[in-house]
């Protein structure tokens, strides 16, 4: 067992309702993992199982080679040596930032405490704020203070519950990238929970997509987007639409918008009725193309427009188009498909 965190077949139900069903995964030493899923999917409960606030009914939790939880034994939270940052940071309002940070440093002498404080303050750029009280900090500063407090005792694992939910939307991705650098610098194993895929992409080495208490896929961001293993994952991660089709051979599927080809072979049997995932980046705008679609909706995203296009058959697809191609509503525009890897699922 080389993983810093090992979750083995965890199940948990609350008042007869299953919250987690047979979840297993592992995180490397110094790895950053993200549990991604819609609200109510059980991701926060899973985090709380690792922290020790919840007791799984089945399965085991291992932290740094120590079994901290199985259905019979349960190591109390305070003995697990974890660090946790809550969604709203939960800084102690009656203590200064400095006192918050050193709160968990109990068995160190004063000199070592100061040393660790200085390290964290420098790492998280909190120099100007250590004597302030939490209420006078901005959201980002509060987050860094809470992070410093959690990191101070050098925990075996750092748990982050929706760490960006309380921040301004414009700041989230930038802060996520900064946070990643800090965590990598400190070499701390981290598990975070998020419902926002962009945050997950920016932060994590590996992402677990959860839905209705199940862990659907445990993969890198790139593979989740380009090779989702289930339709639910494909639907949740990234944008796109499904269109119906029939497999012709190992590289082609026949659909109502024509035969879609990919460069990589797939393994679905010939003749199978399937659904094909079309990402907005699979559909390119091309004035020379014979295939046209009418603009029914458009969203400006700065460098690009996300167009919703209606084909002659009535089918709607999404397309990302550089924003100097500004087409009015209802105008037919030429489109062309360009797909490396077909993502197909059997028709339900």
């Amino acid at each position: 067992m080389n993983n810093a965190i090992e979750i083995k077949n965890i199940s948990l139900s609350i008042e007869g309702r299953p919250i987690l069903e047979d979840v297993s995964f592992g995180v490397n030493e110094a790895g950053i993992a993200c549990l991604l899923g819609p609200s109510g999917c059980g991701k926060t409960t899973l985090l709380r199982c690792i922290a020790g606030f919840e007791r799984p009914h089945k399965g085991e939790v291992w932290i740094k080679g120590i079994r901290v939880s199985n259905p019979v034994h349960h190591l109390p939270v305070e003995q697990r040596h974890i660090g946790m940052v809550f969604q709203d940071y939960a800084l102690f309002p009656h203590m200064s930032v400095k006192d918050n940070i050193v709160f968990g440093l109990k068995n160190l002498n004063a000199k070592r405490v100061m040393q660790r404080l200085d390290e964290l303050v420098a790492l998280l750029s909190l120099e100007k704020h250590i004597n302030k009280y939490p209420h006078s900090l901005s959201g980002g500063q509060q987050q860094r203070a809470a992070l410093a407090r959690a990191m101070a005792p050098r925990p075996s694992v750092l748990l982050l519950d929706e760490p960006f939910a309380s921040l301004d939307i414009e700041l989230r991705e930038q802060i996520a990238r900064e946070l990643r650098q800090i965590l990598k610098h400190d070499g701390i194993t981290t598990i975070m929970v998020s419902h926002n895929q962009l945050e997950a992409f920016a932060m994590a080495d590996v992402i677990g997509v959860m839905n209705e208490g199940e862990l659907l896929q445990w993969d890198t961001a790139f593979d989740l987007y380009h090779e989702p293993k289930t339709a639910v994952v494909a639907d949740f991660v990234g944008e796109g639409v499904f269109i119906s089709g029939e497999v012709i051979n190992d590289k082609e599927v026949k659909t109502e918008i024509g035969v879609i080809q990919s460069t990589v072979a797939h393994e679905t049997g010939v003749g199978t009725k399937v659904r094909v995932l079309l990402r907005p980046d699979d559909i390119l705008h091309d004035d020379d193309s014979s295939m046209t679609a009418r603009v029914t909706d458009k969203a400006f995203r700065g460098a690009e427009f996300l167009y919703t296009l209606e084909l002659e058959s009535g089918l709607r697809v999404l397309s990302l188009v550089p924003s100097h191609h500004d087409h009015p509503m209802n105008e037919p525009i030429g489109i062309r498909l360009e797909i490396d890897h077909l993502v197909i699922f059997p028709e339900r």
Partner: protein
Amino acid sequence: MLATRAAQALPNALAFKTVLFKLTNWNPALVFLSLLFSIPLAVVFGSLFFPEYEVWAHLRATVLTDYIGNSLALLLGVGFFSLLLGVIPAWMVTMYRFPLSYQLEWALLLPMSMPAYIIAYSYTGALDVAGPLQTMLRDFTGWQYRDYWFPEVRSLGGAIAMLSLVLYPYIYLLARAAFIEQSVCVLEVSRTLGCNAIDSFRRVALPLARPAIMVGLSLVVMETLADYGTVQYFGVSTFTTGIFRTWFGLGNSLAAAQLSALLLVFVAVFLYLEKRSRKQARYHHTSSTYSSLMQQRLTRGQGFIALVICAVPLVFGFIIPVSLLINWAIDTYADVLGKDFYLLLFHSLLLAFITSALALAIALFMAYSNRNNQSLLNRIMVRFVSMGYAIPGTVIAVGVLIPFAWFDNSIDTLLMENLNISSGLLISGTLFTLVFAYLVRFLAVSINTVEAALGKIKPVMDEVAKTTGMRAVIIVKRIHIPMMRGSLLTALLLVFVDVLKELPATLILRPFNFNTLAVRTYELANEELLAEAAVPALAIVIAGIIPVIIISNSISRSRPGHE
């Protein structure tokens, strides 16, 4: 250069104008009312300008040290024990589940319904030399009186115990509200940082609840300093008994007023210390979301210990004294219930009703005057009137009686000199005086309740209503009254019950031959007719349970993270 100067001066001039507006745009009726209700305070402090050297020399040589020493000892003792009785059960019922913990949540408020003088009477009846406990002890052992040692109820220690048992609910109430309000995340964070349950309580929960606990403690201090019935009955010399004695024993009203001023300085010093202790850290909650409290279920043994700890204040502060009262009431009700008793009841209810209705009307007037008016003077005046709650009833009585008597005498003299008619006493010794004193003391209760209710009706609701074409009268009828009805009733009931319980001011200011339940209870107890005092005492306790129900309902409704 000049232009920039002028530009710089402009905002200052504007600010000055705003301040001026805030000071001048006041409501004359409101300011008049406020000044009227601050007469007692002005009289008490004004008395300091007419020093009574002889009386003070006498007081200093004899009893003043006792007054100060006993009052301080009483404060420290009651403060300490009510903290103990209030904070620990509050934490336990909030964080843990054990047998009867849900019932204890509200039942721990019940001792609030018991005026301190009534609990003092019932324990004296039970623990005195002639009481059932000592009689049983003697019968059982064959000892004689003086053969054995038995704790003396009628002592300073007894007074501390009695007051703590009925005043701790203030601290319990506020501590519990603070514990419930704390974001669970903050406690969970401390667990992840290596704190066990006791560490979390000591390092996080308790410091966070400290401001609320201090507010509770300051209420306890005010009530302790205001107590007259208990200390008088136990023969403990404090400020309040001293004021009585100086007035009625030494016959010196001015010195009594000066003693009152000294007592108020005590109150003020404590309130100031409390304010200052909070100044350092501001206890804003940094969390905006609340996850519901997860109460930890205790094991059978732990649960039993928790039950015993939490039951102590309830059993000794309510169950035992009420059982004693019921027991005596059963023996005596046939003799007590009669025309005289119903007259007492009628008097008490009449006074309580008149006062609470007037207090509500005045509170409504003040709250509405302040609603759309940012006048600083108005606000200061309303805050000033609200201070009355901190003034002991004895002090208010002194502050009311002196000016009213002066007024009556002046009119009388004037009429005698000019028309040779005696007007007698016009307002002293009338119900008017008594109601006025009650209003001075209890207006704060209705003002705070009404202001809180009106504060919930945001001005934007009025604006929305106006856009639909409603007139002001209709807005009040269709929006304000339905939204405030519950709070107005609460304001009415809280004052009603406070008036029923009030003893010292009633004792001093009641009209001749006019008796109330509280005064009659006091008289009977002082004539050593404790059993006969049980029926009126029980009537007061039953009335006192009403606000307890109101309070516990409003808490369970306002709890975050709970249905």
